[in-house]
């Protein structure tokens, strides 16, 4: 039993570090991809291919002037970015990063917590994600920051509903709320995306809105709100806000890959004739490749589409996505009853 506790603690640390490192290099990837889309080079001065750029950015942020607005609520002003970072990192606890590794008599699952409410846990973490932004935006005591925070709150609550409805269709099909079961059922090429294309579309759009990425980055829309909720932030406190956006992107990509694209499953998994442990390792690499693709999708959309207007955003969430998700639930129920697997 002790070895399992040690293993879990190790896994938690590895996943935390991995999230941070991936988020760090996602900032570089974003700038490189932006450069590619705009026909320029992107950062290439620090290290080969600009590989040291994230480190340089981090060091720069640490040494910038720490500024605190005189009228800010001091405690909440610091709590805002800390909470955003904390909640961004919480989501990774229930994602199955791979199947099990068997060493001797011990079976090590590559998942921190296989709780039987995994999907709901992720949903809960997303729903409390708005606190950091709201607290930060309000405590800055700046009207632009407040507007950004208010926008973030209404946007995230609106899109959470459609996201939850899309998840319900998945839960109806798999009959389980545990992410481990949902991924295990998508063995081989039986990925949920083939059965749930509408749900997948709704989920991805909502994931964009929940991470405040373009075309839904209204809370930090610079042409209207200067910087949105982080207008008054500087130094590493600003860094935390910017950085947690990339962690959220990573976790959302992992969720999309696990829920709709089979997680660590890949086609012809049984024909390879490899041992169980090797299959687990290959599966983990496949999962990370899928995550990489979805992170690229986030960046691709950001540098392709213009921003929505705020009323368009609200109308789209309530009048298009939510009805679509509800129709999807009804259709899933009818089809499931007609053609029981």
């Amino acid at each position, binding site marked *: 039993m002790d070895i399992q506790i040690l293993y879990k603690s190790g896994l938690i640390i590895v996943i935390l570090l991995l999230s941070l490192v991936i988020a760090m290099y996602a900032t570089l990837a974003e700038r490189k991809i932006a450069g590619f889309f705009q026909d320029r080079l992107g950062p290439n001065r620090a290290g080969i291919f600009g590989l040291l750029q994230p480190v340089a950015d981090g060091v720069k942020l640490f040494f910038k002037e720490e500024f605190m607005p005189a009228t800010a*609520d001091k405690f*909440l002003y610091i709590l805002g970015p800390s909470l955003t970072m904390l909640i961004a990192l919480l989501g990774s606890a229930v994602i199955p990063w791979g199947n099990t590794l068997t060493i001797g008599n011990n079976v090590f699952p590559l998942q921190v917590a296989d*709780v*039987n*409410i995994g999907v*709901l*846990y992720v*949903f*809960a973490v997303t*729903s*409390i994600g*708005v*606190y950091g932004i*709201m*607290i930060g935006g*309000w405590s800055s005591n700046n009207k632009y920051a*407040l507007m950004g*925070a*208010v926008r973030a*709150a*209404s946007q995230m*609550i609106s899109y*959470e509903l459609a996201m939850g409805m899309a998840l319900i269709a998945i839960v109806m099909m798999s009959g389980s*709320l545990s992410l481990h079961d949902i991924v295990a059922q998508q063995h081989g090429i039986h990925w949920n995306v083939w059965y749930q294309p509408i749900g997948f579309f709704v989920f991805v759009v909502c994931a964009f809105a929940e991470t405040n990425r373009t075309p839904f980055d209204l809370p930090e829309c610079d042409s209207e709100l200067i910087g949105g909720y982080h207008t008054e932030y500087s130094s590493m406190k600003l860094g935390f806000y910017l950085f947690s956006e990339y962690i959220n992107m990573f976790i959302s990509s992992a969720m999309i890959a696990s829920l709709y694209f089979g997680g660590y499953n890949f086609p012809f998994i049984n024909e390879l004739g490899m041992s169980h442990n090797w299959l687990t390792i290959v599966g983990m690499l496949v999962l990370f490749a899928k995550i990489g693709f979805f992170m690229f999708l986030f960046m691709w959309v950001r540098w392709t589409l213009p921003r929505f207007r705020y009323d368009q955003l609200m109308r789209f969430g309530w009048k298009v996505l939510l009805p679509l998700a509800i129709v999807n639930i009804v259709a899933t129920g009818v089809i499931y009853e007609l053609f029981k697997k």
Partner: protein
Amino acid sequence: MFQVYLFLFLSCVALFSAMMVLLSKKPIHSVLYLTLTFFALAGHYILLNAQFLAVVHVIVYAGAIMVLFLFTVMLLNLNKEGQFPKTKLVKIIAAIAGGLLFVVLIGSLKSFDLATVSNPAVSQIGLVKNLGKTLFSQYLLPFELSSILFLSAMVGAVMLGKKDKE
């Protein structure tokens, strides 16, 4: 033993933050302390082996209702002290209402038989599968009725919130 420490810790957090909801000068601090109270209560639900209740508690109360509270407090900017007049009448009404609530709580605690409480760690009713089966078989009618009630409340809210077309 670990669970006892956890219980004590969560209870302290819940009591402290519930007190701070009342004692804080700024409305926004009260709202945030209330959210903390909800989290502590969700922890209690997990200790009672009611995972579903815990996570729904977080989603509904901390994730939706408290965000709306925060939203309202921020928009109205209820930040200055003395915005609400504390007259004698208000104080007397508050004392009577609070006292009545206290009497009700004491009464319900007195009639509560502690001996019949089963060990929460053994109880499996809070797990999502058992809860769903019970809700959709034994308590199907009350469950459906309450969902109709929610639906009508939702429609009513939309009707009230809609601007008159003239």
